[in-house]
């Protein structure tokens, strides 16, 4: 199994901010347990990720939480929650680091305040505090300087990236003083009125982090202004199809129009089409819609795990899995397939006789090696896999196996 470092709400347990566990739980989808991704609200006022609720509704048409009937077309976006979740996710690492660092280390920060000025807004939780405390405790600051320096290195490393970003081609220009991006005609007025006078970190479009510098409220207003909520026009949603009303050829044609593969059984076609609609429509709800090629990639993943190329879907593989099952009933299997076994035995005998004849003919030359008897085929033995599998591994060593978590704690 791949090693996972999965952020989870339990990360807050044991920190001074244990209350954030509830906050984080409220920000996670009940179906995928991940942070809400394009949260949608149902008719019964429950919220799920767009893709999760669409999958659920396409299977049984009921809300997973209260079992009330609902339809995909009645889903509405929960934008306020989306904003809250995105903001929380953005600052989560910083808060968690803050919560897990011993207090003496995280408090003083004063000597490096200038450098801190350039930091991302998420760092504010960290350097806000020192502003108030360090002035009165210079001595403490020196004492913990080493620790701060260490942290600083981390910070600078992660802070570098924005500089290397290419100029986005959004028709906007950057303010020469604070680097905030805006329309050309706004620059003059901006410099007169609202420029903060120092370089600001660039916020990506659709980021909803409020810029809490100075607390003037300018930050958030400005960031909303310069980042229109829908930078690209959301593509149109696809309608669901009533598969039972659709003939094979019609379905194939529809899928052809959508550029989907038409391989596999009718059932597979319906499943594939359904999955594509789910992926597509969920993408329409997203603040940052993916490109079609990315969705195609997602469909490809689905195809490998659950679709036509899923390991358990093919008949042969399915049988293999059945035989390998610990509870596999050998006797029942033998009776059921008795005739085909006899058939195989007869065939095997026939080919053995032929082989013997051939061997006799070529016997004198000694060139022809007799087929090594590996116990199969010749006398019709069925290949019976090792039934004694089912390895049990004790989990007690799990925590040690994941050192990165250990350190963060």
């Amino acid at each position, binding site marked *: 199994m791949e090693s996972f470092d999965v952020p989870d709400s*339990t990360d807050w347990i044991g920190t001074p901010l244990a209350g954030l566990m509830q906050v984080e739980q409220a920000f996670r989808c*009940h*179906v995928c347990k991940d942070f809400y991704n394009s949260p949608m609200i149902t008719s019964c006022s429950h919220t799920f990720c767009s893709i999760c609720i669409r999958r*659920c509704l396409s299977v049984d048409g009921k809300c997973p939480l209260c079992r009330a009937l609902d339809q995909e077309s009645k889903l509405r976006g929960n934008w306020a929650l989306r904003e809250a979740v995105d903001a929380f996710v953005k600052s989560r690492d910083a808060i968690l680091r803050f919560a897990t660092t011993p207090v003496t280390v995280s408090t003083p920060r004063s000597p490096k305040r200038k450098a801190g000025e350039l930091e991302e807004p998420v760092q504010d939780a960290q350097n806000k505090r020192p502003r108030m405390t360090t002035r009165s405790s210079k001595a403490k600051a020196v004492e913990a300087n080493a620790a701060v320096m260490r942290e600083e290195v981390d910070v600078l490393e992660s802070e570098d990236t924005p500089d290397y970003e290419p100029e986005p081609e959004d028709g906007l220009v950057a303010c020469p003083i604070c680097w905030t991006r805006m329309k050309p005609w706004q620059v003059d007025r901006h410099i007169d009125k609202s420029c903060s006078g120092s370089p600001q970190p660039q916020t990506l479009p659709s980021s909803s982090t409020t810029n809490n510098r100075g607390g003037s409220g300018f930050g958030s207003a400005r960031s909303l202004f310069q980042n229109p909520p829908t930078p690209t026009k959301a593509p149109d949603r696809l309608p669901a199809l009533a598969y039972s009303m659709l003939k094979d050829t019609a379905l194939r044609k529809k899928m052809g129009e959508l550029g989907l593969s038409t391989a596999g059984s009718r059932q597979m076609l319906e499943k594939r089409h359904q999955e594509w609609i789910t992926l597509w429509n969920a993408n329409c709800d997203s603040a940052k819609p993916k490109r079609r090629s990315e969705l195609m990639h997602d469909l490809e993943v689905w195809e490998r795990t*659950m679709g036509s190329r899923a390991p358990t879907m093919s008949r042969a593989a399915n049988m293999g899995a059945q035989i390998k099952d610990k509870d596999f009933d050998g006797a029942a299997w033998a009776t059921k397939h008795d005739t085909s076994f006899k058939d195989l035995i007869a065939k095997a005998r026939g080919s053995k006789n032929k082989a013997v004849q051939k061997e006799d003919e070529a016997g004198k030359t000694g060139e022809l090696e007799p087929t090594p008897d590996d116990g199969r085929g010749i006398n019709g033995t069925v290949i019976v896999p090792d039934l004694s599998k089912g*390895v049990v591994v004790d989990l007690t060593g799990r925590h040690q196996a994941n050192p990165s978590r250990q350190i963060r704690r």
Partner: protein
Amino acid sequence: MTVPFAAKRLGKELQKISNSLPPGVELVSAENFEEWLLDIKVLDDNPLYQNQTYRLKFRFGPSYPIEPPEVVFVQLPDRPIPMHPHVYSNGIICLDLLGQQGWSPVQNVESVCMSLQSMLTGNSKNERPPGDEDFVRVNRQRPKDIQFYYHDNDV
């Protein structure tokens, strides 16, 4: 998004349950995202289940949690199959929660374990389901393919 959603969700569940589990539930093994083993105990003093530990086997399909996991009791020398009018002697459990109808993606491994705990706790009948012998002898189906008829709403 290259990780199929079942694995992603199970990864999160595993993270959580290897940190903390409710009393009477213990993780035995979870090597992959297909099959997990857990032990459960009934914690109150129901005489039927006192001092007993039961082994549960969870099997997850690629559509988990949209589709329910397959959950059965497993018999081992020190892990009996609990006596219950909804538990067959081969470990198959008849519980609507585990069927297509009663399952909801909101459920998880932990909640299933707790439901089974409470199903056992609330039981006072020391018996197997009607037709247990026949079913155990004849059944070759996987639990999820069996069409249970949920007739008993008390448990």
